[in-house]
């Protein structure tokens, strides 16, 4: 959580026009299907996902630009599942072009590299393990995409001041530069972030805990080129043996993040001359331009229930974790991608209301997992006692010599598509499928994400490598049930698995039926399945 950004670093951000909403013209109250409050990562992702699925929404944002009141860049690291989501939404090519693709990292202590990793080798997705890019670019590209898709009424300078609900609808009081109005919505999505006034208005306890750790971000441009790797010092000699993070973002800007003493003065450590001195201690006497300096502390919170009646909480409004491992922004984007298809199916009457309950059943445990993972990193990086410092020194010392101990050195466990627990809709599966290469029945090269986009908001059934005698026609007839379902054989005449990657991500043997959800999570995996079993899985996954 940045406090006041010291300056804004020469980025030019778009400003979007305030357009007086129709309510102010005729004074008539309107009821909408879906209203999203907050145009950050999660709110914009949801608006874009709904638009991409042909579902209309209204998005209310109190500002008229992207980013956090100015050019401060918060999230910078977008992980594979997120990049796959953006591939589905259509913004991935711009992110790839503008961002920094990386997969290698080094962890250092003192003057030495303790260990290094390369995550590309284990990846089978069309998207790389990570791209670094300033958060406001991600938001910018989403806004452009939403405007191109249509179907989303983006209302800038519309500040929500009051939310109430009945069993029928949610009433939202809105303030604008041209006056106030009230609208109604069947569903309201709170994407207003960490200090959500909506959450507070309902009096929901977010179980906040503050962490004493303090850091200071220094975004900087150099003339020199460094390797595009993530470097993390657990103990940096040039920073009084505290942590330092170093990685590259778009526009040749480096994010240098320095761990500060817990009792430091945020105003002092973010002064330009102090930041410059810190930088020279780190990199020597080189030429640089400061882009942005921001001290921050962090806290975490987790709502018990991500739904309250007709209101859903996504992103930071629902959960905040410490920043290590990029599990904040990435998980907010995944919240949106989890909820989007469910809202689409329910509002189109293709699935019953209980499907919406699975949002909390899946994303609350995911947030709980992210909180546990990031809290452990936070504790490793900021030992709270002499005993903890001793344990850490032992782990780092052993890691230099023995591979087993490298796993103990925790500089962040990077964001993943969290697996979902068994629920009324998922059993014995619940993991995300990487966006692997496939071929279409006509032989054209494609991907799982492209297939999901092509079928619309429908489940994809794949019968993997059926042996002779399998009732393929019986599976195909499930398409005639009217349920949102498309069927494909993987094998001759169907989709192809030229590199064996689909087999690998499905962990599928011949004659296995895989039921893939619109968010590319696996709903069910049934060996030697019959069409009746496949239909039962589909109905369960739709909460029918």
């Amino acid at each position, binding site marked *: 959580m940045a406090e006041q950004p010291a300056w804004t670093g020469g980025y030019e951000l778009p400003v979007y026009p305030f357009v007086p909403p129709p309510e102010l013209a005729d004074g008539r109250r309107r009821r909408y299907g879906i209203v999203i409050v907050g145009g950050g990562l999660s709110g914009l992702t949801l608006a874009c996902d709904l638009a991409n699925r042909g579902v209309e929404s209204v998005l209310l944002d109190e500002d008229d630009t992207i980013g956090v009141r100015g050019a401060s860049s918060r999230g910078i690291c977008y992980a594979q599942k997120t990049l796959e989501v953006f591939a589905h939404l259509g913004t991935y090519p711009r992110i790839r072009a503008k961002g920094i693709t990386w997969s290698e990292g080094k962890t250092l202590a003192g003057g030495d590299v303790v260990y290094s990793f390369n995550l590309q080798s284990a990846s089978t997705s069309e998207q790389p393990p990570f791209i670094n890019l300033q958060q406001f670019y991600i938001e910018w590209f989403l806004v452009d995409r939403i405007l191109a898709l249509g179907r989303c009424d983006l209302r800038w300078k519309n500040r929500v001041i009051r939310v109430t609900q009945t069993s029928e609808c949610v009433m939202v009081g809105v303030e604008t530069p041209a006056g106030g109005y009230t609208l109604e919505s069947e569903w309201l999505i709170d994407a207003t972030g960490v200090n959500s006034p909506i959450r507070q208005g309902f009096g929901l306890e977010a179980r906040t805990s503050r962490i004493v750790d303090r850091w200071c971000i220094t975004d900087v441009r150099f003339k020199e080129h460094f390797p595009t790797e993530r470097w993390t010092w657990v103990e940096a000699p040039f920073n009084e043996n505290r942590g330092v993070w170093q990685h590259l973002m778009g526009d040749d800007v480096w994010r240098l993040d320095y761990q500060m003493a817990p009792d430091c003065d945020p105003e002092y450590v973010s002064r330009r001359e102090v930041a410059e001195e810190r930088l020279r201690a780190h990199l020597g006497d080189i030429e640089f331009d400061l882009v942005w300096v921001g001290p921050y502390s962090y806290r975490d919170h987790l709502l018990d229930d991500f739904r309250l009646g007709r209101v859903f909480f996504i992103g930071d409004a629902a959960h905040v974790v410490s920043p290590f491992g990029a599990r904040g922004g990435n998980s907010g984007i995944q919240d949106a991608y989890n909820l989007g298809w469910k809202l689409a199916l329910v509002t189109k009457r293709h699935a019953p209301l209980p499907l919406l309950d699975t949002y909390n059943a899946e994303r609350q445990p995911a947030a709980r997992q992210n909180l546990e993972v990031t809290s452990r990193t936070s504790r490793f990086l900021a030992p709270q006692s002499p*005993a903890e410092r*001793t*344990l850490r*020194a*032992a*782990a780092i*010392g*052993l890691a230099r010599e*023995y591979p*087993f*101990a490298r796993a*103990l050195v925790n500089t962040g466990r990077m964001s993943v598509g969290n697996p979902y627990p068994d629920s009324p809709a998922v059993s014995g599966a619940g993991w995300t499928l990487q966006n692997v290469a496939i071929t279409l029945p006509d032989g054209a090269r494609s991907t799982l994400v492209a297939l999901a986009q092509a079928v619309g908001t429908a489940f994809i059934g794949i019968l993997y490598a059926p042996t002779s005698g399998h009732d393929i026609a019986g599976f195909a007839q499930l398409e005639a049930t009217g349920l949102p379902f498309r069927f494909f054989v993987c094998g001759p005449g169907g989709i192809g698995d030229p590199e064996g990657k689909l087999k690998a991500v499905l962990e599928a043997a011949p004659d296995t039926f895989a039921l893939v959800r619109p968010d590319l999570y696996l709903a069910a995996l049934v060996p030697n399945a019959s069409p009746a079993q496949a239909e039962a899985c589909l109905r369960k996954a739709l909460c029918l």
Partner: protein
Amino acid sequence: MTTDPNIPDPDGFYAALVAAHEGLTEAQSAELNARLVFLLANQVGEQAVLLDCVAAARKPFAPAG
């Protein structure tokens, strides 16, 4: 967690441990012990056993957390 005797030469192991701490400061001894814990933990390699051992080690003191 094995609590029946399983160390082939207990006296020899104890003597080696004492010898390893000779001439160290308190802080160095603490780090040696921590290194040893991690090395031994990797030999055990079973999460449930490791957690049982942590709990047993904590037993004489006030409960954690």
